[in-house]
């Protein structure tokens, strides 16, 4: 009996000791876990802030991409539409020029073009070419420019003349087409401004 009781006492002691140890371990683990959690919180907050900030940056980037490309696409469509409208105005204007009356004003224009051409080439020994419509007018003017002659070939143009030195080394294109071509950028600007662009 006595041995049983001392055995029980020993077991009780061990149980109490073990219980204390377990409780102390639990307490320590609890406190460690709390510390770890406390320490992790700022890191977690930092990570959270970083993820949010990266996400915001990415969203801003995507927004910029979408807005940028749609702006460009829209602008390009506007440009194409504007160009189409400018071309229409241009071709109508060219039709009108081609069918203009060959009256006295037009004869004066041809005379001015001839004067301009001989001045630029620096010689009156010239061959003048023009289209079939203007041949008679040009021919009548040439008497005022000694040394000049009308070329046999007709040229395809709206009006005006192409003047060549008789030795063939110099040519001066004084057709209405060439003048329009040179002024085209300014005329386009003028037409575009009527559509409210570039004002």
């Amino acid at each position, binding site marked *: 009996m006595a041995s049983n009781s001392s055995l029980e006492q020993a077991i009780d002691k061990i149980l109490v000791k073990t219980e204390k140890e377990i409780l102390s371990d639990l307490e320590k683990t609890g406190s460690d876990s709390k510390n770890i959690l406390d320490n992790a919180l700022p890191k977690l907050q930092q990570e959270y802030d970083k993820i949010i900030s990266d996400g915001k940056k990415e969203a801003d980037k995507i927004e910029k991409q979408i807005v940028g490309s749609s702006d460009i696409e829209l602008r390009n469509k506007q440009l194409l539409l504007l160009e189409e409208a400018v071309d229409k105005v241009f071709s109508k204007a060219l039709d009108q020029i081609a069918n203009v009356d060959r009256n006295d004003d037009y004869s004066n224009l041809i005379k001015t073009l001839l004067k301009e051409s001989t001045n630029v080439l620096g010689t009156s020994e010239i061959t003048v070419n023009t289209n079939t419509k203007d041949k008679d007018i040009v021919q009548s003017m040439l008497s005022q420019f000694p040394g000049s002659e009308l070329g046999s070939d007709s040229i395809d143009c709206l009006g005006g003349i192409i003047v060549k030195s008789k030795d063939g080394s*110099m*040519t001066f*294109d004084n057709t209405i087409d060439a003048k329009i071509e040179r002024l085209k950028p300014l005329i386009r600007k003028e037409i575009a401004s009527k559509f409210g662009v570039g004002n």
Partner: protein
Amino acid sequence: MTTEGGVQYSKIAEIKGPLVIVDDVENAAFDELVEIQTTDGERRLGKVLEVGNGKAIVQVFEGTTGLSISGTNAKFVGKVMEMPVSKEVLGRVFDGLGRPKDGLPDPIADQFIDINGEPMNPEQREYPKDFIQTGVSVIDGMITLVRGQKLPIFSGSGMSHNLLAAQIARQASVVGTQDDFAVVFAAIGVQYSEAEYFRRSLEESGALKRSVLFLNTADDPAIERIITPRVALTVAEYLAFELGMHVLVILTDMTNYAEALREISAAREEVPGRKGYPGYLYTDLSTIYERAGKLNGRKGSVTQVPILSMPSDDITHPIPDLTGYITEGQVVLGRDLFRQGVYPPINILMSLSRLMKDGIGEGSTRADHGEISNQVYDAYSRAQEVRALAGIVGKAGLTEIDLKYMDVGDVFEKEFLTQATDENRTIEETLGVLWKIVSKLPKNEITKIKDKFIEQYYQEE
């Protein structure tokens, strides 16, 4: 613009390389634009290089391949080459001569400007002192670019200068102001894939709408390259000084420009200078680089970042050498860093922005910027010495402080220098990384920064 056209001459005396010599020419002017018409009606553009004794030497931009003496005509247009400009050029892509390359019509011009530009009146120049944020840490933090500066990038064959150029073009911005910002990008003699990369990169990032691209690819005639930087700068000057925008001009690759110049010089049988480049290479380059700056009383600015690849990585080659005399500093890419896979591989110890000191600090970036930058420069320089020493005595032979400097070198390259190609860092983020590097050192090693900044920004471990 005039309605009067020019005279067309049909006596071609000689065709030599990119040059056409026209006989019996009267009244031609230096730099006058010339239209060359071939027998099959094709038109090419050129300009007068020399006039005299009834002859005119014409440089044909699109090359002389396929031209013959008989049947070729040269029409002297009576004006110099002009670029039509308006705000509509933003978002457009042009070729090296300024003709649309994006399938859209010519821009409706507000003005026609001589591409050779007017030299800036030195008296009217304003000292550049405003910061441009590129979003690339090593540039913003240690080789800061300021508005109106010309800061070249010296690279080498095959290195990542084009990636860097595209990244700067996408990300660059002016901070602390509502002023408009634009990028004019001129690719000179680049590969087709690179030109496409530039175009796609700006399109996809949404930056194209504030950019103008001029693309001269490697298969375009070399002579066109003489014109590309000039048309780009003409547009930049218009945007800056007429529309008041801050314009960043990126010119890549200026080596191809100089080689085109050499080709013309050889065809003209001029006495060659160093490595066959013409003796006037310095003067010619200055006519491009000096088109950067700010003007008194004008709102905008033109900032230039010309990029050039140094043949054989030789910094004493005439192109980087002469460029360095004109520009205000240089960014040098290092082959060693590139081989290690570092991007951008900028060798900070060989790089310098001469105007940085005036563009940083309180009111523009942050009060501690100059000092932290100097400290990191000093520490990285020391780290390189320690690395060299470690190569001889081994790591075990280094002192504790030496090891800390080695650590600084590693963090500098891995966290500060290395950056993703789509990573856009603010100046605050950049300065934050610089402080992280300095904080690897004990406080007594920090000798270039005021105590108040150390107290405020030093990161204790």
